[in-house]
C-alpha cells in the first residue's frame, strides 16, 4: 500500500495503543489464528485480518460517530421504488453519498416531484457503511434519518441579496432601453425541449397573426446545468443579426426549480445583450432575477409571445388596407372636388342670368295677379259706390218732391201774407226815416245852429283850438262865413279862462247866436 494509505490507516485506527486494541478486537472477530495467512514480511502493522471482520468493525466505528446535520444541493436523486432512496449532497467543496430508508423517506410527506436535482436540503444522520458480502459490494453512505427542504426563505434571502447587488450596478436598466420592433421578422425562443412552454409561445404568436421565423434554442431549464446553457444560447442568438427579439420561457415550478433563472452570470449576460429579452419564467407569482433584468417580464409564455410582437398583425393589415383606401380616395377627391368647383364656376354666369330671369318672371306673374286683384277690388268698390249713389239719388228725388210741396205751400203762405207785410214794412220804414232825419245835423243847422271849423274844414270844438287857429269859418245850413279871432281891448293878454270875443272880418248877413253848447255839439 502507498504512504497515503498508511496515513489513512493511521487516522482510522488512531494511536499505537488504539491500534493494539483494534487488533485484539479484530483478532477476536477473526477466529483461530491458524486459519489466517502469513502477514507481509517486514510490515509492522497488525494482521492480517479477514476483510469481513474489518468491514464490520469499520461499520461499527462509523456508526459510533456523532450524528450531525449537513446541508447542500441534491444531485442525482434515485427514487426507484427500492428499499432505500439514494442521492448525493454537494456543495462547492465536496460531496457526500446519502441514503435514506424508504419508510423514513415516505414519512417526509413530500409531494411527488417536489424534491429534485438542485434542491437545497438539510439532512440529519450519520455515516454508515454496508460491509457487503461474498456476493454483494460494500457501500459507504451518509445514512439520512430525516430531511428538510431548505425553506424558500433561505433562497429568497439569497435572491434578495443578489437582486440588490445587480440593481445597484444598474443592470436592470439596459434591456429596458432597447427598442423593440413592432413587427419582428425573426424571434429567438429559449425553452425546454418538449415542454408546454413551446406550444404556448406558438399559440401566442398565432393570436397575433404573426407567421415569421422562429429560431428555437432548446436548453435545460432546471438544475445546475441550466443557467450556463441558457446563457450560451442567449449569446448565440444575440450574435445572429437576423434575430430581433428573444423569448425565454419556462413553465411553473417551485422557487428552487426556478433558481437557475436567478443565476448571477446569466443575469449579467442578459443585461449586456444587444437584443431585447422577454422573460416568462414560472407563474405570475414568481419573480426571478431574469424577470428583473429582462426588457419585459410576462406571466405566461403566451403573453411573452404577444409582447414579442406588440402589433396585432391581422388588425394592422386591415388598418393598413383602410389607410390605403383612404389615401386613394383623398387623392381622387382632391382632383374631383376641384374640377367640380371649376365647372361650377364656369356655369355661374349663365346660372346667374337664369336665376334673374326666373325672378323676373315670378315678379311679372305676381304683378299681373296683383293688377287683377286691384281691378276686381276697384270694380267691387265702384259697384258699391254706384249702389250708394243710386240710393242717394232716389232719396234726393223724394226729398225734392217733398221740397216742392213745401215750397208750394210756402209760396201759397207768402202770397197770402204779402199785402199785410208790405204795409207793415212801409210804416216801419217811414218811422225809421223820421228817426233818422231827427238826428241829421243839417236839420239842426236849419234850426239856427252853426258849426265852427278851421280853414281846412276841421271842426273847432274849444277855445284854445279857436285861438290857436286864428282864422275860422262859421258854417250855417246855407253856407260858410270866414271869421278872425281878436283879442278884446283892455283885457289882459294872458288871462286864463277869460272869454274872448270873436272879431268878424267879413260878417255875413243873418244872426250870429252865441250858444257854446250848440256851437260845440251837433
Amino acid at each position: 500500500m502507498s504512504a497515503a494509505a498508511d496515513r489513512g490507516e493511521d487516522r482510522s485506527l488512531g494511536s499505537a495503543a488504539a491500534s493494539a486494541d483494534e487488533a485484539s478486537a479484530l483478532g477476536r472477530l477473526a477466529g483461530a489464528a491458524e486459519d489466517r495467512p502469513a502477514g507481509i514480511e517486514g510490515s509492522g502493522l497488525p494482521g492480517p485480518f479477514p476483510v469481513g471482520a474489518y468491514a464490520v468493525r469499520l461499520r461499527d466505528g462509523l456508526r459510533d460517530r456523532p450524528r450531525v446535520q449537513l446541508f447542500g444541493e441534491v444531485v442525482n436523486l434515485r427514487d426507484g421504488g427500492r428499499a432505500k432512496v439514494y442521492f448525493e449532497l454537494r456543495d462547492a467543496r465536496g460531496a457526500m453519498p446519502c441514503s435514506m430508508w424508504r419508510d423514513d423517506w415516505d414519512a417526509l410527506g413530500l409531494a411527488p416531484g417536489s424534491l429534485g436535482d438542485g434542491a437545497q436540503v438539510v439532512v440529519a444522520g450519520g455515516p454508515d457503511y454496508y460491509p457487503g458480502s461474498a456476493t454483494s459490494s460494500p457501500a459507504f453512505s451518509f445514512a439520512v434519518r430525516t430531511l428538510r427542504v431548505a425553506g424558500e426563505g433561505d433562497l429568497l434571502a439569497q435572491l434578495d441579496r443578489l437582486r440588490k447587488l445587480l440593481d445597484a450596478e444598474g443592470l436592470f436598466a439596459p434591456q429596458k432601453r432597447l427598442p423593440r420592433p413592432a413587427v419582428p421578422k425573426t424571434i429567438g425562443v429559449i425553452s425546454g425541449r418538449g415542454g408546454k412552454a413551446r406550444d404556448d409561445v406558438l399559440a401566442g404568436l398565432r393570436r397575433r397573426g404573426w407567421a415569421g421565423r422562429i429560431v428555437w434554442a432548446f436548453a435545460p431549464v432546471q438544475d445546475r446545468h441550466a443557467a450556463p446553457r441558457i446563457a450560451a444560447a442567449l449569446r448565440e442568438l444575440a450574435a445572429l443579426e437576423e434575430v430581433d427579439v428573444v423569448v425565454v420561457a419556462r413553465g411553473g415550478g417551485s422557487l428552487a426549480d426556478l433558481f437557475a433563472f436567478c443565476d448571477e452570470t446569466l443575469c449579467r449576460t442578459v443585461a449586456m445583450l444587444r437584443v431585447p429579452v422577454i422573460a416568462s419564467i414560472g407563474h405570475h407569482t414568481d419573480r426571478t432575477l431574469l424577470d428583473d433584468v429582462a426588457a419585459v417580464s410576462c406571466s405566461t409564455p403566451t403573453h411573452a409571445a404577444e409582447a414579442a410582437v406588440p402589433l396585432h398583425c391581422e388588425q394592422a393589415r386591415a388598418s393598413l388596407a383602410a389607410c390605403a383606401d383612404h389615401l386613394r380616395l383623398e387623392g381622387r377627391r382632391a382632383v374631383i372636388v376641384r374640377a367640380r368647383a371649376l365647372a361650377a364656376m364656369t356655369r355661374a354666369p349663365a346660372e346667374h342670368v337664369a336665376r334673374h330671369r326666373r325672378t323676373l318672371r315670378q315678379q311679372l306673374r305676381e304683378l299681373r295677379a296683383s293688377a287683377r286683384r286691384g281691378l276686381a277690388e276697384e270694380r267691387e268698390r265702384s259697384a258699391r259706390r254706384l249702389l250708394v249713389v243710386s240710393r242717394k239719388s232716389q232719396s234726393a228725388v223724394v226729398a225734392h218732391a217733398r221740397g216742392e210741396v213745401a215750397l208750394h205751400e210756402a209760396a201759397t203762405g207768402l202770397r197770402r201774407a204779402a199785402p199785410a207785410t208790405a204795409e207793415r214794412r212801409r210804416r216801419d220804414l217811414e218811422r225809421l226815416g223820421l228817426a233818422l232825419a231827427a238826428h241829421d245835423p243839417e236839420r239842426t243847422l236849419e234850426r239856427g245852429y252853426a258849426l265852427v271849423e278851421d280853414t281846412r274844414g276841421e271842426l273847432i270844438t274849444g277855445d284854445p283850438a279857436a285861438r290857436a287857429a286864428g282864422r275860422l269859418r262859421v258854417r250855417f245850413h246855407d253856407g260858410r262865413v270866414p271869421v278872425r279871432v281878436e283879442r278884446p281891448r283892455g283885457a289882459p293878454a294872458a288871462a286864463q279862462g277869460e272869454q274872448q270875443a270873436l272879431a268878424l272880418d267879413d260878417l255875413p248877413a243873418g244872426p250870429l247866436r252865441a250858444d257854446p253848447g250848440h256851437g260845440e255839439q251837433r
Partner: protein
Amino acid sequence: MSTEPEPTYEQAAARIEAIIRRLDSGEAGLRETLELVREGRDLVEYCAGELEAVGRGLEELELDELVARLEGGRGAPSGDAPPTPER
C-alpha cells in the same frame, strides 16, 4: 450622398396617421394633397412589405440549424428555405 435611414414600422404607421389627419382637415392645397397622398402610398407599401414578411407562413428552425445554414451559405438569402407549415 447620404441616404435617409429606413423608418421603423411604428414611425411609418405614425406618419401615415399624421398624413390622413392632415388630409381630413381639408386645409391642404392641391399640390400638398397630391404630395401627401404619394408619400402615404409609399409608406403603406413599406408597411405592407413589413407585414408580408411575417405573413408568408411560420418557419421554425433550431439554432444549430440556422447557424449551419448561415455558415454554409452566407451569400444566399436566409429566407430561401420553404417555410414549414404552421402548427
